[in-house]
């Protein structure tokens, strides 16, 4: 197997889901058997097999990145530029190979789960087509070797997300959420695009490798480099739902639950983290600090909100945001591998959590349907409780995921979270940004607390609605199967033999932090390699921080779990009393820090207001001027007409009148009476006589 075969296999793996999309969209509903779900799922499974082949070959036999390029457009020779062309292509390195597998695994499992979950849906075929389109776009992000196609697929996942969130578009809330998701993402993408413009204008290429090489040569540095880094990261802020653009993700839960699992938990939202990892080499110290703070703030905000939410999917959504903030923070604080590791582990257990919640919602939905209750919200955890007995498989898998996300040993989450916290610890110690590790540890506790709150309220205790409870059943096999697989994937042995040491995992072994290409004066001092020692100061600190971080994070998680049990399981602490005691805080958190209201009342209303003003301006002012000038012209022409009528014609008429007047006068003499004439004659004769004779 050589490089070209690998590229070919990766390309096929990329295109298979797209082929499924095309088939389903044109023939799905009427021509294909079972509306084509098997075909689409088969394609994605094929893609999964190929991605495994690519993955193992890559990490075992090809230590160097494999790149394949082709010339897409060519502008020819351009003054002040040289040969201007855009080349696109595929890049397979360990990072993308791993991500390829992650995306395909989750996608396949979600496809399988959906066969059960979406059964009897009105747009069953359309749903699978969009899933295929999403998988294609996501794989495109993973495999691309340049900023341009990255942006292209970046937007395409946005569209598939839009279409899938709005899958049940008859509901206003669903179509609103879809719209919101797309527009908020567009805001982030705007920054991303500006970043790309900076890169293209200064480095004349989109290719990652060439861009990094160009930065290393000093073609882009200083404030502009930091700006480019932050702007590219803006794309991640939008896509990965980081503060301040995190508002779309909770609303995106309007989509079908498997979609939430695939897109809004495991893969698409992680694309922001992937992008940051991809472009990591060009991030300057300032940009990294910015990233770390954004991540930390996001993690904190989302975790605090998650505590108060009662919708099972919204709790998970905020936990996703929080975990994504973790990853971002980790990348920003220099723990590159840990951040990516957490992406991988989080993909499995968070997809599992969502699918598990999907299983619960599915059961609730059917139970409500049975008792003809169409008003109760099937996603509200206040209506659940005690489901453990009825849905054992869902419960136990859900427990594993919850343990994983809380960072309890023997789970994958423990490995990755521990690394992140160690990285934050080291970063805080060396850079003086102590807020970041503080938030990191605090959020670890919060995470354990709200996740166990969710678990307890849903599965433990007494059922709150007996009537519903009686009709609850475990989900069908096709839905349970992915849950089990994901639970297995959330255990430590998938990644490494030692459940307490992340450095023994294959992720740490094969994924390496890329060498920064940023000029040395724009890097953190402690990240620079020293001549005397082999490891950088940071790596040293990281190593030292490992054990304390682990103990501290375990302690925080244990504390969180303890409080959750005290409050919700054993009833030692009354949640209501606490809420009442901290009324303002509680209301503030319950309302999600009022972000939606803030944005609605500022940006949205302002834009709408300005747009109405623009319309008014057009209609009244510009058209007013246009119509006004038309009226003026008309007025002018009327007055010209009046002038013509009165003055010029008046003069002519006056002349005629005068002539007529004289005519009238003279006519009086000519009265037509002969006798008068005779008088004239006589008179005249007399006069003549007088003149001539007298």
């Amino acid at each position: 197997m050589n490089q070209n075969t690998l590229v070919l296999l990766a390309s096929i793996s990329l295109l298979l889901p797209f082929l499924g999309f095309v088939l389903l969209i044109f023939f799905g509903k009427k021509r294909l058997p079972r509306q084509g779900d098997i075909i689409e799922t088969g394609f994605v499974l094929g893609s999964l097999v190929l991605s495994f082949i690519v993955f193992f070959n890559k990490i075992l036999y090809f230590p160097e990145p494999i790149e394949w390029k082709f010339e897409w457009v060519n502008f020819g020779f351009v003054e002040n530029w040289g040969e201007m062309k855009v080349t696109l292509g595929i890049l397979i390195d360990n990072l993308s190979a791993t991500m390829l597998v992650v995306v395909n695994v989750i996608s396949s499992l979600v496809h399988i789960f959906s066969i059960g979950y979406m059964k009897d849906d009105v747009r069953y075929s359309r749903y699978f087509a969009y899933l295929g389109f999403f998988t294609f776009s996501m794989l495109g992000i993973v495999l691309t070797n340049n900023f341009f196609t990255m942006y292209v697929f970046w937007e395409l996942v946005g569209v598939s997300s839009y279409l899938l969130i709005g899958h049940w578009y008859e509901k206003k809330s669903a179509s609103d959420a879809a719209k919101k998701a797309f527009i908020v993402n567009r805001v982030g993408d705007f920054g991303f695009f500006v970043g790309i413009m900076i890169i293209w204008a200064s480095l004349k290429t989109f290719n990652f490798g060439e861009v990094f090489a160009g930065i290393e040569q000093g073609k882009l540095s200083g404030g502009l480099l930091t700006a480019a880094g932050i702007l590219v990261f803006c794309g991640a802020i939008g896509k990965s739902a980081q503060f301040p653009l995190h508002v779309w993700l909770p609303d995106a839960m309007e989509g079908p639950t498997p979609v939430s699992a695939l897109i809004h938990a495991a893969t698409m939202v992680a694309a922001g983290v992937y992008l940051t990892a991809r472009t990591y080499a060009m991030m300057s110290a300032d940009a990294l600090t910015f990233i770390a703070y954004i991540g930390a703030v996001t993690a904190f905000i989302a975790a605090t909100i998650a505590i108060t939410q009662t919708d099972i999917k919204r709790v998970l959504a905020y936990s996703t945001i929080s975990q994504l903030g973790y990853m971002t923070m980790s990348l920003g604080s220099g723990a590159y591998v840990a951040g990516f590791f957490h992406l991988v582990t989080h993909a499995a257990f968070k997809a599992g959590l969502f699918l598990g919640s999907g299983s619960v919602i599915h059961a609730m939905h059917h139970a409500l349907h049975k008792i003809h209750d169409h008003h109760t919200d099937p996603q509200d955890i206040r209506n659940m409780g005690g489901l453990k007995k009825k849905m054992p498989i869902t419960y136990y898998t859900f427990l594993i995921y919850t343990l994983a996300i809380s960072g309890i040993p023997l789970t994958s989450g423990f490995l990755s979270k521990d690394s992140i916290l160690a990285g934050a610890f080291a970063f805080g110690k060396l850079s003086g940004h102590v807020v970041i590790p503080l938030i990191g540890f605090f959020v670890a506790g919060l995470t354990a607390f709200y996740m166990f709150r969710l678990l307890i309220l849903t599965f433990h205790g007494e059922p709150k609605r007996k009537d519903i409870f009686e009709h609850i059943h475990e989900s069908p096999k096709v839905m349970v199967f992915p849950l089990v697989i994901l639970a297995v994937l959330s255990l430590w042995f998938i990644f490494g033999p030692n459940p307490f040491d992340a450095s023994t995992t294959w992720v740490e072994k094969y994924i390496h932090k890329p060498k920064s290409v940023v000029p040395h004066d724009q890097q953190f001092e402690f990240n620079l390699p020293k001549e005397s020692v082999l490891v950088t100061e940071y790596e040293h600190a990281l190593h030292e921080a490992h054990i304390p971080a682990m103990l501290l994070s375990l302690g925080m998680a244990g504390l969180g779990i303890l409080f959750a049990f005290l409050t919700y399981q054993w009833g030692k602490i009354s949640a209501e009393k606490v809420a009442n005691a901290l009324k303002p805080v509680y209301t503030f958190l319950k309302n999600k820090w009022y972000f939606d209201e803030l944005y609605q009342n500022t940006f949205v209303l302002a834009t709408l207001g300005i747009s109405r003003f623009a319309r008014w301006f057009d209609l009244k002012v510009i058209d007013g001027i246009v119509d006004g000038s038309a009226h003026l012209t008309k007025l002018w022409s009327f007055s010209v007409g009046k002038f013509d009528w009165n003055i010029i014609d008046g003069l002519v008429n006056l002349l005629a009148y005068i002539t007529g007047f004289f005519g009238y006068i003279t006519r009086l003499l000519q009265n037509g009476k002969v006798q008068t004439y005779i008088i004239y004659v006589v008179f005249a004769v007399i006069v003549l006589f007088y003149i001539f004779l007298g």
Partner: protein
Amino acid sequence: MQILGIGILTWIVFLPIVAMVFVLFVPKGREIWIKWISVVATGIQVILAVVLLLNYRYDLAGVNTLEGFQFVEKYRWIDVSGVAWFGRIVIEYFLGVDGLSMPMVVLTALISFIGAIASWELPKTKGYYALYLLLDTGMMGVFVALDFFLFYIFWEVMLLPMYFLIGIWGGPRREYAAIKFFIYTLLGSVLMLLVMIGLYFSTSIIDPVTGEKVHTFNMLAMMDPKNYEPGSIFSGLHTTWRYIAYIALFIGFAIKVPIVPFHTWLPDAHVEAPTPISVILAGVLLKMGTYGMLRISFPIFPDGMIKYALPMAILGFINIVYGALAAMAQEDFKKLIAYSSISHMGYVVLGMAALNTQGVTGAIMQMFNHGTITAMLFLIVGVLYDRAHTRGLYEFGGLANQMPKYFGIVIIAFFAALGLPGLSGFISEAFVFLGAFQTYKWIAIFSATGVIITAGYILWTTQRLFFGQLPEKWKNLPDINARELVTLVPLAIIVIFLGVYPSPLINLMNTSVNHLVRFVSEMGQAGMQLGILP
């Protein structure tokens, strides 16, 4: 290249006129013949455009060199010797294409063909199609004429049928819209006419036949400073008169584009015009403004272009953002699309103002892509209006289930309009921004916010039309029919194809664009030092 002894460009320009004569002689009661004659004639035009494409040489630049033009036809048209002090008048029948006009020729042929099919159901067939074909000739002529006088004639020829097509076949406020359109455009024409006459008296070339010096309307001659008579009004570079002329010409073309604040004829004309005429208006006519700038303003007044590039870029930015904002506030579907046209033409202006390869390439691509995308959008509005007889955005909802095929087409067109990668609109917008960013960083960045607003109004429109519950009164709305699909699907294919692989279009214009950019920037910046006669 000739067919039956007549040049292919003459064929492509005057074929509609020939068809018009046939149409006029069709007896009463045979309206179907008229339709077929028109569709076949415009269809042949498309074939001729394809023939042109196949024989097009990609290495020739054109712009200001006669040798660079292809399929050239150059004959004496009007030659009056010695009219008192006026001197000898020579006007040439001078046609030719280069990379700037070739995409426009293809676009015009294509949109005319699709418009002819879309006109199938309109009343008063004979008059309609006769005017339509005349309009077609006018548009095509504008894009291939290389003699300023001829250009002006075609420019005016297209105006008259448009007036009647809006004024007779239009909506309720058609008279107002038609008159507004006519007077606006005429205002632009007058400015253009004045500049043209000034240029005529300023330039003179040696007549190859008689050897005497004669004034000329030849555009290519006007681009060469050596041909300007010393002491004449436009001689030299960077003179006040040349700036004035550039601005006058700019306004003349800006009205057509339309550039804010000369744009208010557009929403009225587009909304009142019948569907196929809206398609023509947005698809082709708007491009005549920007094409005129590229073909005439830039190479003839490079100094003015350079001097006023920044204001032009700002106008482009205003167009993008203002148009998008105004679109967002509209409640009439068609008016919204009309404003989106203003916004999208802003990208063209911005790209041209950047005056570099990506910017101008992006601008011309945007001209072509906007032509196809907006044609789709107006056809889409027409489909809905034909069925529901209303365009109020708030009156609809849930159409996605009622008209699934229609929904599919609309999604393609809408996403193309909001610049979704993979569809043609994105490519051109991206290149415009990449180009503009090199010249005007902040303007490019601010303009890019237009992309967000565009997403806003497009998605909001999608939601209002297609999502939610279907109102009771639209329960019987039929889905899109075969004839309408015939008009929409080819455009959708082009939109997708050029979105994935824009190289054919880029290669078509590339040589010319590079040449134009170099020529204009060198001429504009070099100023007086260039070899101008004393």
